[in-house]
């Protein structure tokens, strides 16, 4: 077996120890990120770029009293580390007092999580090129032109504090996404997969799905308006990933969130969504595993955020928890929306008139009080009539409150991991179902393909 990518456990520990030894501050926190990224891009049925790089960076936070500063460097010789420690201390000494600083965490009980898959860590440029060639062949045989991206990450992280916290974690991730277009640019289809384990990336299916979507989609007119919408899992994931930061108690308590109570405080415990909605995070969730601790050492465990439509909890920083006399609660490191038993086919069959959406693009917040977003559909939008896909239709801009969406959900498929970031880079693991939702607001037509 090849050596794992990123620094070894021993190296992580020895660099952390070295920095803590060098530290002369009241408190010190060390975070090390070490890893490799390899990638291959295809466009116009050719590999247009491919590369790889390894990087280890060390982040040192020094604290005097409540004066805090941090320095990050990738220069790792003994001398350079010493300079970085001194620099962070020099900066901290002159930094104004941060009244929200809370002393570093000591040892925590952290259950290790295995998120490193050798299948991903050992993926070679040749394997990536073969997957690319497969997709190119598939597209060419359908007289299409493919653009694709395979992003592969493997590495390790460590966190150490002068109060005795130490944790390390190794992880891998791979995202494979593909857009296939007709040579005249008038048709387009997309498919993608994301996983920690390369064995769960179905590159042949991704190619087939994108080519099939492209073959079936071309724009035909449809009036904008409120439609019953069936959102494929990727479309759901691209919206729901925004919820990671919305589950925050401070912004709620401060009156800046949908979760704020009109007269102050927050809405934990209130039923806010349809009772089919269950949202949780779990660093040990299979093939969506994450680190079991966050960037300051707070342990992460399975946590319900929404249970049968009821807001269960909101994340609290250590400072905010102290202010409110509560226990701190780390923000989610992944997001899982529990699925149901319905299949996509059943959703379509049950729909008299609606729109099927593959994915979105350029999603931007418009109103945090209603968790509203705008954005556009892309790469496969279809009209459903009388239980069947009747024809492909134009793309749309949507203006939609996620609160309304989560109140209007009618059906849910089983949940799957999706490539939810717009750039299709490996990112926060998102596991969501396809959903059928009433009154989805497709506010205007987009001429884009």
């Amino acid at each position, binding site marked *: 077996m090849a050596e794992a990518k990123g620094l070894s456990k021993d190296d992580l520990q020895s660099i952390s120890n070295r920095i803590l030894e060098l530290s002369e501050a009241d408190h010190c926190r060390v975070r090390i990120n070490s890893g490799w*990224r390899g990638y291959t891009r295809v466009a116009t049925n050719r590999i247009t770029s491919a*590369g790889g790089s390894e990087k280890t960076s060390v982040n040192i936070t020094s604290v005097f009293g409540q004066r805090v*500063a941090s320095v990050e460097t990738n220069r790792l010789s003994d001398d350079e580390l010493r300079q*970085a420690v001194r620099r962070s201390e020099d900066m901290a000494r002159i*930094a104004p007092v941060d009244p929200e600083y809370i002393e570093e965490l000591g040892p925590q009980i952290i259950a290790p999580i295995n998120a490193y898959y050798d299948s991903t860590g050992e993926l070679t440029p040749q394997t990536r090129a073969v997957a690319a060639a497969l997709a190119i062949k598939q597209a060419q045989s359908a007289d299409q032109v493919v653009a694709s991206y395979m992003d592969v990450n493997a590495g390790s992280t460590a966190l150490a504090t002068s109060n005795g916290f130490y944790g390390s974690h190794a992880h891998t991730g791979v995202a494979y996404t593909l857009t296939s277009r007709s040579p005249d640019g008038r048709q387009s289809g997309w498919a993608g997969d994301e996983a920690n384990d390369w064995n769960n990336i179905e590159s042949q299916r991704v190619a087939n799905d994108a080519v099939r979507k492209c073959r079936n989609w071309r724009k035909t007119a449809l009036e904008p308006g409120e439609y019953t919408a069936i959102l494929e899992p990727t479309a759901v994931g691209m919206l729901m990933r925004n919820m990671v930061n919305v589950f925050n108690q401070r912004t709620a308590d401060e009156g800046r969130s949908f979760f704020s109570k009109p007269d102050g405080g927050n809405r934990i415990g209130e039923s806010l969504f349809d009772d089919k909605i269950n949202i949780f995070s779990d660093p040990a969730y299979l093939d969506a595993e994450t680190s079991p601790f966050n960037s300051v050492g707070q342990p992460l465990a399975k946590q319900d955020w929404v249970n049968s439509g009821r807001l269960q909890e909101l994340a609290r920083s250590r400072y905010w928890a102290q202010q409110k006399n509560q226990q701190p609660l780390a923000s989610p490191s992944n997001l899982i929306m529990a699925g149901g038993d319905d299949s996509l086919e059943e959703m379509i069959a049950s729909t008299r008139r609606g729109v099927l959406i593959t994915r979105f693009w350029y999603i931007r917040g*418009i109103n945090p009080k209603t968790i509203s977003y705008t954005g*556009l559909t892309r790469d496969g939008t279809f009209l459903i009539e009388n239980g069947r896909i009747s024809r492909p239709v134009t793309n749309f801009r949507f203006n939609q409150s996620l609160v309304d969406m989560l109140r209007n959900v009618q059906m849910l498929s089983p949940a799957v991991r999706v490539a939810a970031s717009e750039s299709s880079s490996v990112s926060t693991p998102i596991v969501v179902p396809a959903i059928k939702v009433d009154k989805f607001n497709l506010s205007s037509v987009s001429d884009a393909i």
Partner: protein
Amino acid sequence: MALRPLPIPVNHRPSVSNLGSPIHDSRQFSRRNFIKLAGAGAAAGTVVSAAPAAAQSMTSSERALLLLAIDVARDAGAHYSDGRVIRTQFEAVGARELRVSRVQSTDSFGINIRVLVGGSWGFSATQVLTREAVTKMARDAVAIATANNAVAPSTAVLAPVDVYPNASWVTPHSIDPFTVSFEDKAALLLKANEEALRGSNVRYAASNILCVKEERLVATSEGSFIDQTFYRINPSMNITAISDDGNDFQTRGAVVEPAGRGYEYILGLDLVGNAPKWAEEAALKLEAPSVEPGKWDLILHPSNLWLTIHESIGHPTELDRALGYEANYAGTSFLHPPEETLGQTRVGPDFMQFVGNRTEFGGCATTGWDDEGVPAEEWPIIEDGIFVDYQTTRDQAEWISAQTGITRSHGCAYGQNWESMPFQRMPNVSLMPGKEDISEEDVIAATDHGIFIEGRGSYSIDQQRYNIQFAGQVFWEIKNGKKHRMLRDAAYVGRTPEFWNSLDVIGGDSTYFLGASFSDAKGQPIQVNAVSHGCPVSLFRDIDIINTA
């Protein structure tokens, strides 16, 4: 208005510092730069000069490693290679209300090489600056290119470029932001927040200063060796007011713009002096009536219009995007195919001129040379309202040379750091001011039923750049040629060609300034690019406004 003209140091001649450099320089001196520099000369006498010698940031051992990488790549079978040693330093100071929320510095240093085997690229990078690691890096890049060339070969052909064996360039600046202490930066932000918090109903104020120093040594196997140092600076401030009953909040953000300049730029912004005005605007938004949706005339201040330009003119004129190279993420373009659009497609009225440039003073994308050793220049993108040229790199120039008659690159190659392979990135793309000296007041006076928008708000556009929905920070209702009252919850929507063809009046030179972003995203892996867009105050007729409440 939000920004006022700043003194420009007399020694700062953007794009001049390399005029005396070797062999050939085809660039023209920008008209706007010339006017601005000439006008500012008198006021700039007291500014301390920056030493051009600072350009020699890299040591001889780093230069030697770059030459080694190119030699190893050649021996391993690359017929072209270019490499970079890049050191990027960030410094961030942030304040939230009356406390300091961050004091951070990052430093990232490494070397990369990009090689051509057949027509296929390979790229590799390392942070280990030893002969052994750099040799392995160069061989890895050739191995990747060879693997690609065997399986799915590409057809890159490089446009000619002059060789610059010993060139250097430094962002014009008078105060290196990295010489200003964290204490001083924090004190400025805390004072600005304090002033903002005096405003009625203002409960939150957050401000930041992010400074970037990028040292970049580029070498090509053709013999160029270019050493450059870039400074960019990004100040920001957000002020939030909460209604008396606690049920509503409104934020005034995006109050100032990033720039490719030194710390003197921050001092000139007068954050402390302007904070009360921005705070008042946040509070006014609480009381403002929600906009009535429908057709309105729109007056867009440069602090709003620059991002509209970025999204609807900047992106669709990226050539790789137009040809499908970014189809899997950033998207394609409505300006395609080149042979049916170049010199033919009308994008706006005949007084509308857009230029691409990497030469404009203060621009975030301003440079001496690009990442392929191509000198910075200025060129027309939209001329008299007609689309005439794209943004290009060396391997793209020939794709459209039959239409444009231009065989050389426009110098748009950039990789965000040592880990990143350079590719086509946006230059400064700017809307030229009108020939007449039309002021902001003149434009307002010419409007009966309109909305004047300042500051960028929520922005979204489709991947071919047709369907726009852009908001702002501050909306003033204009009634019969006068500012009537503040409105809220507005966004303008439309289709790009119709939007630009509704442009009716553009302001003169006095209304022109640069807005900018540090985070223009493109590519897979995603890379960010800092870019500026200049424009005058502009009036658009009969635009659809929606209510976003």
